[in-house]
């Protein structure tokens, strides 16, 4: 296993080699040529996360979430020592942002247990508490995740873009829509780990890793046209977003397969999983297939048949965006 300095060096080289993929945690992959390299995605599952079958509770068990996170990170990095593995994921002395998603309200938001588990491992890996920022659009979304606002610099900071504000200068990529980015992303975080929650989406089809970035702009509604395509891909291709959002630890512990992005408990189910990876396109492709499988199980039409397939995933993989891969042949899926 390479040390962190080597790791970061190769990670940077990797970013140049294959565009947006930062390749954190994928040191070995960097030895391959970009054309033949596969994007690694880990799906870690614990069927008993919400209690034994027949006695399901709405909140996952804390200890099991930490174990599941460790298992996912171990599978991804090849390092069975969680703290050591994290040292290879996060750069030293930098500010790490954890972008949660609380838009769906209390019933379907990133779980606080997952956020706390990641914060614990980050600190054990040497990240100072004040160098961790848990954030989303606003206080309401953060509280929906079960988190409490805190701006105390000696502790893990938890606040929204309603506190930091947005940049005055709008930016864009491709589409005519210009967006104002959150100052938490542009000025405070050196690296962001996306912590989306898996959901069906009324317009985009699926919301997960890339769609989570709608929460970093002031007026995401302006990117909703045409099933959020190319809005999602364009937003993720904006240099600041592309370069800083380096890793996804996707919360698929509970999900809605219809009626999203809001909470529709009649369509709630418990995949009891985490989906992690650096390639957000590959992560989203994997998440999409998970939603489709559940829809098929419950007799719902495919998203294609429902006229809202997540077309933005293919757009994100195209030659203009090069944000990652959506070809299953080029995704190294590891299920643990």
């Amino acid at each position, binding site marked *: 296993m390479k040390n962190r300095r080597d790791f970061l060096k190769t990670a940077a080289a990797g970013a140049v080699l294959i565009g947006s993929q930062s390749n954190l945690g994928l040191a070995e992959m960097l030895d391959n040529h970009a054309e033949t390299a596969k994007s690694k995605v880990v799906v870690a599952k614990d069927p008993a996360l919400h209690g034994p079958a027949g006695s399901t509770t709405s909140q996952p068990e804390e200890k099991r979430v930490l174990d599941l996170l460790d298992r996912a990170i171990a599978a991804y990095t090849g390092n069975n020592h969680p703290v050591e593995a994290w040292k290879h994921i996060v750069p030293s002395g930098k500010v790490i942002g954890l972008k949660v998603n609380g838009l769906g309200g209390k019933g379907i938001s990133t779980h606080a247990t997952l956020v706390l588990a990641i914060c614990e491992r980050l600190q054990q890996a040497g990240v100072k508490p004040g160098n961790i920022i848990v954030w989303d659009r606003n206080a309401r979304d953060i509280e929906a995740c079960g988190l409490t606002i805190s701006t105390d610099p000696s502790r893990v900071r938890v606040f929204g873009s309603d506190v930091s504000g947005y940049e005055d200068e709008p930016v864009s990529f491709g589409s005519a829509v210009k967006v104002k980015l959150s100052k938490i992303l542009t000025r405070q975080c050196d690296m962001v780990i996306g912590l989306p929650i898996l959901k069906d989406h009324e*317009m985009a089809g699926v919301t997960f890793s890339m769609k989570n970035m709608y929460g970093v702009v002031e007026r*995401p509604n302006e990117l909703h046209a045409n099933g959020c395509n190319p809005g999602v891909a364009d937003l993720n291709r904006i240099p600041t977003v592309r370069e800083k959002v380096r890793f996804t630890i996707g919360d698929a512990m509970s999900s809605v397969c219809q009626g999203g*992005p809001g909470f529709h408990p*009649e369509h709630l189910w418990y995949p009891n999983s985490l989906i992690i990876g650096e390639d957000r396109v590959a992560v989203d492709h994997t998440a999409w297939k998970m939603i489709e499988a559940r829809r098929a199980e419950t007799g719902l039409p495919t998203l294609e048949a429902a006229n809202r397939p997540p077309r933005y995933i293919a757009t994100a993989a195209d030659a203009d965006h090069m944000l990652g891969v959506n070809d299953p042949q080029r995704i190294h899926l590891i299920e643990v």
Partner: protein
Amino acid sequence: MPYRLMNCRKSLLVALVGIAMVFVTATGCRKAKVDPFPSSDTVSGWQKTSDTRVFAARDLWQYIDGDSEQYISAGVVTTSTSDYKFQNQLEAVVDIYTMGDAAGATRILSTNQTSEAKSIQLGDAGIQFAQSIIFRKGPYLVRIVAYESTPSTPQALLALAHGLEAKL
């Protein structure tokens, strides 16, 4: 009393009556605006735990992001929302969508129909699931969602729904 003074008083009286009539027409005859959200303990066991937030159609994305488009295309005018808690344990949220007309409310209700939906006698039409109730009454579409499914959830939600329906 001089005739001119009498005439002046008469004119003043006519003017005052006119103003009063305009005022009554403009305000008194209009149905008073009612807050449809039951206050705490109006419905047994239910506490209203947040202020009511109101979103105009153009701002609805701030509340429900991508969900907003289906309501906008169905003619939503405003959306009001508030949190509730039952017996200090079960948390729920109530959304009241004021549509442009009853057809808009009917359209949204129909999109929520599934084979698991149970029809209920509430407002003009309503359906219930284990953790939620949706009903319409005139231009109003009401959605009540609980965050937990317990044996008492359906009955508690139904009681709150009746409390809301009575105020619409």
